C-alpha cells in the first residue's frame, strides 16, 4: 500500500479539516478511511516484550557459554558430552514448542538467538574436550553454517544479524588468507531471502532497517578486506560502486516517508560517497594506484578473480539503477551515485594512463564542489534547509581540508573561513525568510 503508520495518522488528522473546508465530501473521506483501514497500533508492551525476550535469551546463552568455558576437568568425557548437548536440547525443545504453538515474534526471536548460542557452545565444548586446536575462523565457519537455517525456521532477525556479524568476524580473522574471503560473500547471500521478505513486507520498518544497517556495515568492512595491495586500484572502484549502489537502491527501491535511521541505504550511500571522494583528493590513494597498477603485478589469481567478480556484481545492477533513477528523475541520488562512479572510473583511467596522481585529485576536488553546489541548488529550489546545509557542509569540508595541506597564508585562510561562515549564516537566514514568506502567501491565498 506504500503508506506507513505516521503518514496514515497525518492523513486521518487532515481529513476533518478537508471535509470542513469542502475540499472532500464526507463520503469521499469515508472511502479513504475504508481504503486504508485503521491506523496500525504500536503496542509498546509488545515491543518491550520483544526487546527483553531477545536480551534475556542472549544473556542466558552468554552465561551458558561462560560456564562451559570454565572447562570442567573433574568431569569425564561422557559428562562433558552431556553438558555440551544439554543447552542445545533445551533450546530445540523450546523451538519445537514455538513451532507447534505458532508462538509470536518475541518468543521466536528469543528462542532463535538462544538456539544459536547453544549450538555454538556445543561445538566449542566438544572442541575443548578433544583439545581440537584450530582457530576462531574455523569455529565461526562451522557455527555460522549450522546456524543459518534458524533465521528461516524462527523468522528471526536477531539470528540474521548475529549470522552477518559472525561471517564478517570470520572474514576479518581471515583477511590475510585471501581466497577464503570469497566464502563471506557467498555466505552473506544466505541472508538475502530474509532481508527480501522483510523489506517486501515493510520497506521502512525497524526490522528491515536493522537488517540493512548490519548488512551495509558488514559489506563496507569486508569490501576492503577482499582486495590486496596489487588490486588496490580496483578497491577504490568497488567502494565507489558500492556506495553509489546504496544511494540509488535507497532512493529507487527503498524510499519512503520515514526518518533517515529507517532508511539505512540512503544514509550510508551518500556518506560513503563523500568520505571516498574526500579520501580521493589525497595523493596517497593514487600514488599507490599507479605504483601498483601495472597489469596487477603480483596479484594472485584467486584474489584477482574475487576482485573482478565483486566489481561485476556491483556494477551490473548499478548501471540498471542509474537508468531507473534517470527515468524516475531522482537527481539527488544521481549526483551522489551516478556522477561519483563516473568520476571514479575517469580517475582510475587517467591515473593508469598518466601515472600521475594530480588529475584524479583534481577531479575529486571538482566533484566535491559539484556535489556541494548541486545540493545548495536543490535546497534553494525546493526550499529545504537540510539540503542547503548539507551542500554548505560539503563545501566547507573541502575548503577546510585543502587549507591544511596547502601552503596558503594564515591570514588568507582565516578570511576564507570567515567568509564561508558568513555565507552559511546568510543563506540560512535567507532561506528561513523565504519559507516564512511562502507560508504567508499560502495563508493569504486560502483566506
Amino acid at each position, binding site marked *: 500500500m506504500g503508506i506507513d503508520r505516521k503518514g496514515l495518522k497525518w492523513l486521518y488528522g487532515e481529513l476533518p479539516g478537508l471535509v470542513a473546508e469542502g475540499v472532500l465530501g464526507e463520503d469521499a473521506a469515508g472511502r479513504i478511511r475504508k481504503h486504508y483501514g485503521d491506523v496500525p497500533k504500536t503496542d509498546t508492551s509488545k515491543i518491550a516484550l520483544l526487546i527483553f525476550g531477545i536480551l534475556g535469551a542472549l544473556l542466558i546463552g552468554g552465561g551458558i557459554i561462560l560456564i562451559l568455558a*570454565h572447562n570442567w576437568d573433574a568431569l569425564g568425557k561422557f559428562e562433558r558430552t552431556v553438558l555440551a548437548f544439554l543447552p542445545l536440547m533445551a533450546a530445540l525443545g523450546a523451538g519445537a514448542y514455538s513451532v507447534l504453538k505458532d508462538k509470536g515474534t518475541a518468543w521466536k526471536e528469543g528462542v532463535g538467538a538462544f538456539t544459536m548460542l547453544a549450538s555454538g557452545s556445543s561445538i566449542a565444548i566438544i572442541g575443548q574436550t578433544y583439545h*581440537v586446536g584450530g582457530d576462531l575462523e574455523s569455529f565461526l565457519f562451522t557455527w555460522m553454517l549450522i546456524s543459518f537455517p534458524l533465521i528461516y525456521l524462527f523468522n528471526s532477525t536477531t539470528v540474521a544479524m548475529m549470522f552477518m556479524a559472525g561471517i564478517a568476524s570470520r572474514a576479518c580473522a581471515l583477511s590475510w588468507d585471501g581466497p577464503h574471503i570469497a566464502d563471506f560473500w557467498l555466505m552473506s547471500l544466505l541472508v538475502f531471502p530474509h532481508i527480501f521478505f522483510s523489506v517486501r513486507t515493510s520497506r521502512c520498518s525497524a526490522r528491515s532497517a536493522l537488517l540493512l544497517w548490519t548488512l551495509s556495515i558488514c559489506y563496507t568492512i569486508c569490501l576492503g578486506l577482499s582486495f590486496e595491495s596489487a588490486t588496490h586500484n580496483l578497491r577504490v572502484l568497488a567502494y565507489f560502486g558500492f556506495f553509489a549502489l546504496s544511494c540509488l537502491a535507497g532512493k529507487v527501491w527503498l524510499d519512503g516517508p520515514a526518518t533517515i535511521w529507517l532508511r539505512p541505504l540512503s544514509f550510508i550511500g551518500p556518506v560513503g560517497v563523500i568520505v571516498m571522494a574526500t579520501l580521493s583528493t589525497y595523493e596517497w590513494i593514487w600514488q599507490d594506484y599507479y605504483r601498483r597498477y601495472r597489469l596487477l603485478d603480483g596479484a594472485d589469481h584467486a584474489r584477482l578473480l574475487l576482485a573482478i567478480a565483486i566489481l561485476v556484481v556491483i556494477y551490473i545492477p548499478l548501471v540498471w539503477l542509474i537508468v531507473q533513477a534517470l527515468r524516475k528523475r531522482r537527481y539527488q541520488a544521481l549526483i551522489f551515485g551516478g556522477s561519483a562512479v563516473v568520476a571514479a572510473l575517469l580517475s582510475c583511467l587517467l591515473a593508469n594512463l598518466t601515472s600521475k596522481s594530480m588529475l584524479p585529485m583534481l577531479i575529486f576536488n571538482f566533484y566535491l564542489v559539484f556535489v556541494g553546489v548541486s545540493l545548495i541548488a536543490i535546497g534553494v529550489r525546493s526550499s529545504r534547509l537540510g539540503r542547503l546545509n548539507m551542500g554548505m557542509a560539503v563545501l566547507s569540508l573541502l575548503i577546510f581540508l585543502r587549507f591544511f595541506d596547502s601552503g596558503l597564508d594564515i591570514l588568507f585562510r582565516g578570511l576564507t573561513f570567515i567568509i564561508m561562515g558568513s555565507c552559511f549564516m546568510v543563506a540560512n537566514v535567507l532561506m528561513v525568510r523565504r519559507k516564512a514568506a511562502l507560508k504567508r502567501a499560502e495563508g493569504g491565498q486560502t483566506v
Partner: protein
Amino acid sequence: MNIEFFKTKKFMLHFFFAVAILQLGLPAAMIVRYEDVIRNGTQYKFRTAPVDPYDAFRGRYVALSMREDSVRSDGESFNPCETVYVVVITGDDGFAKFTSAHRTPPVGKGDYIKMKTRWGSDSGETRLEIPFDRFYMNEHLAPEAEKAYFKASRQDNDNTFVAVRVKNGHAVIENLYLDGTPVLEILQPTGK
C-alpha cells in the same frame, strides 16, 4: 506450489526436524570422528614449548608450540595457507618427525596429517600451521601448567611433549606430558 505452503505447520515441523538433526548431528559427528582417532589412531609424541593466552570462546588453554613445525619440500614449492598432507614418522629419538608434504593424501606412505602451510623458504623448508596447538585446562590450572613447564625446562629437561593420535589425516591430542608425566597428575597436589 505457492509460498503459503512454506508457512504451513506441516512444512514448519518438517523444517524444524531437519534443523534439529543438523544441530545435533554435527556435534555428534565431531565426537564420533575424534573418538575414532583416539581409539584407533597411531600414537606420536611431539616435543612442545607451552605458553598461556586466553580465548574468550573456549576458556583457558595451554598454547602449544611444536618444535617440529616445518617440513623439507625439495622440488615442490607451496603457497602460504595452502592445504597439505604431511607424512609423519617416529624418529630415532622416539619423537615425531615430518618427512614430506603433498597436495593430495599420500597413499602407502604411512600416517599423514592434514594441515596448512605458513610460508615457504628458498632453502626448501616449508613452515606448517600445526592443527593441534592447544591443550584445554581449567582456567586455574592452565597458569599452573605453565609454571610447571618452566620449572621442568629450567632443569634442562627435554621430555615435555604431547601425545597425539593420528588417523586418516586427522590428529587429536591425547595428553600433555611434562617431564614424562601427564600434566594433570603433576598439578593434582597444587591444583584443586
